[in-house]
């Protein structure tokens, strides 16, 4: 008769089904849901791109337009939160959102395009303006100058300096 006792216990327990989607469900504080890039804080340094295990975050540069794109494809994201951990500027966060279903793949992309800084010597864009600005603010005035020149030109200048010094 155990089988009927099980049914009686079940009846006593009652229906446990939640009312979702008519009512929202409780999501814990620590939930790791959709990552969101804070477009005001992101400087496009690419630290998250290096840390991201599935390459959900990618970095693309449009050198003609002079724009660096940080692309977040949540359709590949594994919600590990490494990006949040490594971001030096606190610009990416995992939110509590989990209703991410879409009918089109395009809706799964978050793209942040940042203007790139062009090297005043060769005119080639090499990093974002925001990153240059952050670094400049941290450096003493006399050292600021070199951030504003692209790595290639910097190499050239060092080489030139070296030969100059030797001479």
């Amino acid at each position, binding site marked *: 008769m*155990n089988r009927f006792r099980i049914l009686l216990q079940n009846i006593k327990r009652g229906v446990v089904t939640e009312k979702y989607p008519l009512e929202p469900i409780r999501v814990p504080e620590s939930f790791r849901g959709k990552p969101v890039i804070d477009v005001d804080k992101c400087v496009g340094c690419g630290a998250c791109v290096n*840390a991201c295990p599935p390459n959900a975050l990618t970095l693309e540069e449009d050198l003609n337009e002079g724009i660096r794109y940080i692309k977040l494809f949540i359709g590949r994201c594994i919600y590990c*939160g490494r990006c949040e*951990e490594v971001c030096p500027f606190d610009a990416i966060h995992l939110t509590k959102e989990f209703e991410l279903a879409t009918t089109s793949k395009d809706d799964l992309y978050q793209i942040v395009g940042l203007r790139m800084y062009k090297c005043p010597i060769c005119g080639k864009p090499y990093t974002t303006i925001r990153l240059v600005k952050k670094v400049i603010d941290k450096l003493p005035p006399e050292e600021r100058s070199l951030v504003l020149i692209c790595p290639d030109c910097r190499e050239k200048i060092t080489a030139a300096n070296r030969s100059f010094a030797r001479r």
Partner: protein
Amino acid sequence: MQQFSDSKIGDLLKKLGVFGTTSIVTPNTILINNVDDKLYDLCRLLIEELDAYYSTSIGVDERPLNGSFAVYHVFVADKLGLYILVRLEASPSHPIVKSITPIIPGADWAEREVMDMIGVKFAGHPRPYRLILPYDWPSNIYPLRKDFDYNDKYPIKDKIDKVIHGSTEYVVDKEVLEEEYTAVPIGPYHPALHEPEYFEVYVDGEKIVDARYKGFFIHRGIEKIAETRLTYDQVPFIAERICGICGFTHSTAYCLAVENAAGINVPERANYIRSILLEIERIHSHLLWMGVAFHLLGYDTGFMIMWRIREKIMDLAEELTGNRKTYGANIVGGIRKRFDISEEKIPYIKRLLNSVKEEYLKYIDKIVSMTEIRKRTREVGILTHEDAKKYSVLGPHARASGINTDVRKYRPYAAYSEVDFKVPVRDEGDVYARIIVRHEEVLESISIISQLLDNLPKTPLRAEFDFIPEKRIGIGCTEAPRGEDLHFVITGYGNKVYRWRPRAPSYNNLASVPLMLRGEKLADAPIIIASIDPCFSCTDHVVVIDIKTGRRRKLVSR
């Protein structure tokens, strides 16, 4: 090696004259080199005298390191808490080594995997067929060689309809089988398995005559990705995705392997949290399995009850880790910061576990005492003690056949040496015993968690270390819900692993399935297959035959 010179193992090695070429790689691992023609004697002595069992084989492309290929056979001496690696070398021009499958049948799959992935041939292997790679894969391309690019996608041939079952085992001759009996394919997309995997079951009416297994449909190339694209800190995230049920155990085993290789001491608190999360995973996995088992027995109410109880465990996992699958907490050296268990959560966890235990106990005895459940599980799918030893099966499957083995008890890792628990063992070896063993383990796990929560130490969460030294070998072993999970790591350059091979317990357990199926009723096939709690994605780490394949049609319209 001096510490071993007077011990049993030292004597054994001296007898074979390989003591001089043996070295200690980590405190619990020794490596035997230059075995040459003494290989068979060594294997036999290790198994007979040391009571060690064969675990797995690993092929490594060591050409960039020392100019040759290498094969490592891993033996585990459970009672000594020791891993014994036997290293064989193969020259790059003629990569051939001696096969140990003739004396150790359990090495069959592992050796064929090495043949597929590295291209080292095994002389004397009885079934040297392709095992893992897809059948349209070019025959001279070996994915795990270092000169193979991980994202080299070979064009897919348009017609792959002809599937050769090279990976299967025949006990009765295949031709005879097809003539006389109906073949009922179970899988790859079979509702009982929820994973693409293929069992071809030969039946005479309703009685099973023989079974063949074809797996590795989920081969995703995990090892290659980990060795090329990912860094040390990223690998735990792919290790977790070997399996969606016991993922945390895989990432723990990986971290243990790297930590052993590099000699990193993990802080106590991280060890405790790892153990807590591992036990939560075990409870959820066992409850899930019981639910599926009852579903396969046609008792859907039991399935619903088990999963209803499990839902609370999932809520707990979500509360602690932010994800229902306890993913993401491990990192080499400890636990990530956001996965700390704060003081305020402890009473909540205890309350929840108590209510789960209470509700679980209210149902489980009544369900397993039901006549149909008992009839369909008692003396069904028997695996005897001897067969269990021969096939070196692991975990609850082995414990239900009377083998007392548990990594947590005999080779403690994480915080298991600090807690008190017993290892349930049954002698019947049938499906019923497997249910009871898992049932008792659930209760043990609940008690382990509360013991751990009581003494949660206050230390940092992650060990501080500068770098991970190169070319070191490390083995990490954990008790997954399905048995011993072994990870082998060789550390490499540029913050990347050189070689990483996970060996999931189902890899060993699956081999025993055809044995258990023989002579049983077709109706029992799903529950017997499921009784080992097969985790195909674990086994394949990277891998089913369809109802609609041409092959099957042919068999039928005959």
